[in-house]
């Protein structure tokens, strides 16, 4: 059964596409998932890092503020049982030593409730009268329990000191002449300390920190002048009271973290550069694309290799099968390739071998059968002729034509010797010619020279072999049909034509019509049953043995001649 090579794709192509598609889908999916996880982790990492930095900075400030508060508490504690009236010198010493010990404390003062200086260094000229009006003084008395940090731009109130300071104040009680009085403790901190603390932090390129007061006003920015980012980061941070946000400031991705500052109502805002996340993300994306390309290329190569390994032996097997399908049973069968393929090839090989065996035995059987048939056909010729000839001999003997009887009997003897020819089917052309000469001899005696004949066979054909008893029935036919009138002629010519032998037997006479010729062909091919046994016998024997290589042609020229030509393969003079 022959199937058309369908339009569906080949095995190799299917395997290739399947492998590449699966690999591509898997790689893309795993890349997407890992990319998502990675970017998420990266974000988390950046968030936690910026919040850690923020915490670190806030802790630095807390430590600083706590140390200031401890100083204030210590001063209060140390002066607890000291009376301003009795122990003024001791109190002065406590205040002065605390101001001196800490490098960032500019000065320490105690004022009474009206803003009069009680302890502390000399005031700067002209500042003495307005202490009670200063915001830090008023707020300390307004809310007694807590420390007040005032970061308004201001310089120290102490004489000969002009540092920028932060005023830390608290309402305190003190003893004066045995009575408990209320006053205000002031510690002036060097503003520089805040900047120094900010400098310790690493917030990345463009990173800075802001300190906002409770109203959201900017108390401090660590960004160096000119402050390119502070304005925007301050605006962003103004609405934030805790937590973190991301924003792009000045083209950089920044994380804003807000925290409270201990003992104050201030907020510290750290603005740290997390732009590296963008870089890392871009780098990761690039690497992912590269991995994708490489893995697809690799899988394509692997898929190509595998598909070729599988499909090529199959393809070769297919070609072999096609050839065998076309009839070439001896085509060599490729048995290499994967195990399945070679098993398939082996099975196919043994199948072909089996077919070959079967065919060979079939051919043998056919040959045997043909031989049998051939023999039977050959055997049909003789009795008929023998009867006629013996009839002639009887007739000759009755007419006392002894010489003719001798000639006829001798020819008959020769005729039969050749007919028998040791049981061989094939005989040299020379013998076949001799055979018909004997036959013609017999017939010419029988028909008393009512016809003339002549035989012309080129000598190179004489040594060739041919099936015996082919020409005799044809010649017999020619005599019966052609030799009606006197002067009849029978010509037997042999020639070689396109590697075939052709023997033409022609007889003079009325010729035969088209219809008759068609009828004769029909008879030859076994159509009708009547007459022409001889020529049909010849035709069937030729076809039996030579197949298409042999043929019989009948030509006729009306009122002139009829020619029957027998074609058969030219066989050299060896036993065939």
């Amino acid at each position: 059964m022959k199937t058309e090579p369908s339009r569906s794709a080949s095995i190799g192509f299917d395997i290739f596409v399947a492998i590449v598609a699966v690999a591509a889908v898997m790689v893309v999916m795993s890349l997407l998932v890992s990319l998502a996880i990675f970017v998420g982790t990266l974000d988390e990492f950046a968030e936690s890092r910026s919040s850690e930095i923020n915490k670190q900075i806030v802790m630095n400030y807390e430590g600083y503020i706590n140390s200031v508060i401890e100083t204030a508490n210590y001063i209060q504690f140390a002066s607890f049982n000291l009376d301003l009236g009795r122990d003024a010198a001791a109190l002065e010493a406590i205040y002065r030593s605390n101001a001196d010990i800490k490098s960032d404390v500019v000065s320490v003062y105690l004022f009474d409730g009206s803003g009069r200086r009680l302890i502390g260094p000399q005031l700067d000229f002209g500042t003495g009268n307005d202490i009670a009006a200063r915001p830090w003084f008023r707020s300390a008395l307004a809310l007694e329990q807590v420390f007040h940090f005032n970061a308004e731009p201001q310089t120290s109130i102490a004489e000969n000191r002009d540092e920028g300071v932060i005023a830390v104040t608290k309402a305190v009680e003190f003893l004066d002449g045995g009575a408990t009085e209320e006053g205000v403790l002031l510690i002036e901190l060097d503003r520089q300390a805040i900047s120094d603390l900010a400098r310790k932090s690493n917030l990345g390129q463009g990173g800075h920190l802001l300190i906002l007061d409770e109203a959201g006003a900017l108390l401090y920015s660590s960004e160096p002048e000119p402050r390119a980012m502070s304005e925007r980061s301050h605006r962003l941070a103004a609405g934030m009271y805790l937590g973190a946000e991301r924003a792009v400031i000045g083209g950089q991705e920044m994380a804003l973290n807000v925290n409270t500052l201990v003992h104050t109502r201030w907020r510290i805002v750290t603005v740290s550069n997390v732009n590296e996340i963008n870089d890392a993300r871009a780098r990761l994306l690039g690497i992912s694309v590269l991995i994708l390309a490489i893995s697809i290329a690799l899988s394509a190569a692997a898929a190509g290799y595998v598909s070729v390994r599988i499909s090529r032996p199959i393809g070769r097997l297919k070609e072999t099968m096609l050839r065998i399908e076309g009839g070439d049973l001896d085509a060599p069968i490729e048995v290499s390739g994967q195990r399945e393929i070679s098993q398939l090839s082996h099975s196919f090989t043994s199948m072909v071998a089996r077919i070959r065996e079967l065919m060979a035995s079939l051919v043998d059987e056919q040959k045997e059968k043909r031989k049998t048939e051939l023999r039977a056909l050959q055997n049909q010729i003789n009795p008929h002729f023998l009867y006629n000839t013996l009839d002639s001999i009887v007739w000759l003997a009755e007419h006392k034509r002894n010489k003719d009887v001798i000639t006829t009997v001798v020819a008959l003897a020769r005729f039969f010797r050749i007919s028998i020819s040791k049981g061989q089917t094939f005989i040299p052309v020379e013998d076949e010619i001799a055979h018909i000469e004997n036959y013609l001899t017999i017939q010419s005696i029988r028909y008393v020279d009512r016809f003339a004949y002549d035989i012309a066979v080129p000598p190179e054909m004489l040594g060739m072999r041919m099936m015996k008893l082919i020409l005799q029935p044809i010649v017999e036919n020619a005599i019966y049909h052609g030799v009606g009138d006197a002067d009849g002629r029978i010509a037997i010519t042999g020639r070689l034509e396109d590697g075939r032998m052709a023997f033409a037997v022609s007889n003079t006479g009325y010729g035969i019509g088209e219809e008759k010729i068609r009828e004769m062909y029909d008879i030859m091919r076994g159509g009708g049953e009547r007459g022409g046994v001889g020529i049909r016998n010849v035709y069937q024997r030729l076809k039996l043995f030579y197949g298409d290589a042999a043929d019989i042609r009948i030509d006729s020229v009306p009122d002139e001649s009829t020619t029957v030509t027998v074609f058969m393969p030219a066989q050299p003079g060896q036993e065939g």
Partner: protein
Amino acid sequence: MIPTTRPRRAGRLGAAAAVRASLAALAASLAACALLGCASKEARVGLFLYNQADPYIEVFARQIRDESNSAFLAVQFDAGNSQLIQNEQIEAMIAKRPALMMINPVDRLASHALIRRLKAEDIPIIFFNREPLAEDMAIWDRCYYVGARAEQSGQMQAELAMSLFGNDPSGLNEYDRSGDGVIQVIILKGEQGHQDAELRTRELLRSFEARGFSIEILAIEVANWKRDEAYEKMGALLRSHQDRLELVASNNDAMALGAIMRMRQQGFFKDDDQSGKVDRFDDSWRPVVGIDGLVEAEESIREGYLYGTVKNDSLSMAKAMVELARRAIGGPDSGELHYRLQDEKYIWIDYQPFIR
């Protein structure tokens, strides 16, 4: 074949149906949540403690959790005495959309930022244990404070002492060991600069003054609320004031207990009649008063060492907080409020004096 395939198919259909059903249920419950608000039943409340290592706070937190049992789910956080950590915890909790937050701030001034932050998120706050500044409380009408007035503890402590000394400033009883009409007192102060320590000390002294009692402060020692530190410092104090000492007033129970331990070693609190209990009429007995009402303090009072303490009524506070929380979450109709809500913001719980 059929018996094996059929149940399998039925099973698959069953699983699909179950998935569909659960999805539908989920969608329905989400829709119900969106429409009705899930707050009433599964409301979550953040409970932020300044430091769980403080035994008072630990007990207080347990009382709050017990009281809140049915009303809401309290999720507790311990800041470990760091405002930074508490800020982080609050930030993390905001993301989980709690119905309310109960905050015991580490730094009372940080309340300013917390109120502003939670106002923006519309999450009501109940502060406790540390009172934010009044001006910060005024920022938003959904922040509350439940607590005691620190002044009151000092006043009550003074009253405990004054009643022991006979309640008559001009005629002190036998506990004025020297008979000089003046009470010689050692004061153990909490943390220097700590709001409560300052207030308790000041109110103690002011109360004596207001009632006309004469006192002589032998010493004011800062022992940072700690028992061990009080024990250590009491040693030195006794060496110089042992003979004159008539009263020890401590800012809290822990320091009072530390002081008693040292005093026992120095020959105070003798059990002369071998009754197994210390007798306050014994010559070696001196009144020690604390504040807080720790379990150990109550024990010490029963054994006769500690004269009295002023109990911070944390159970009432916990009840008040839970009632207030229920109201803040569910509106004015959700349950009665058994405590006076001053200015729609403050609930003050009185201290309770505790003596044998």
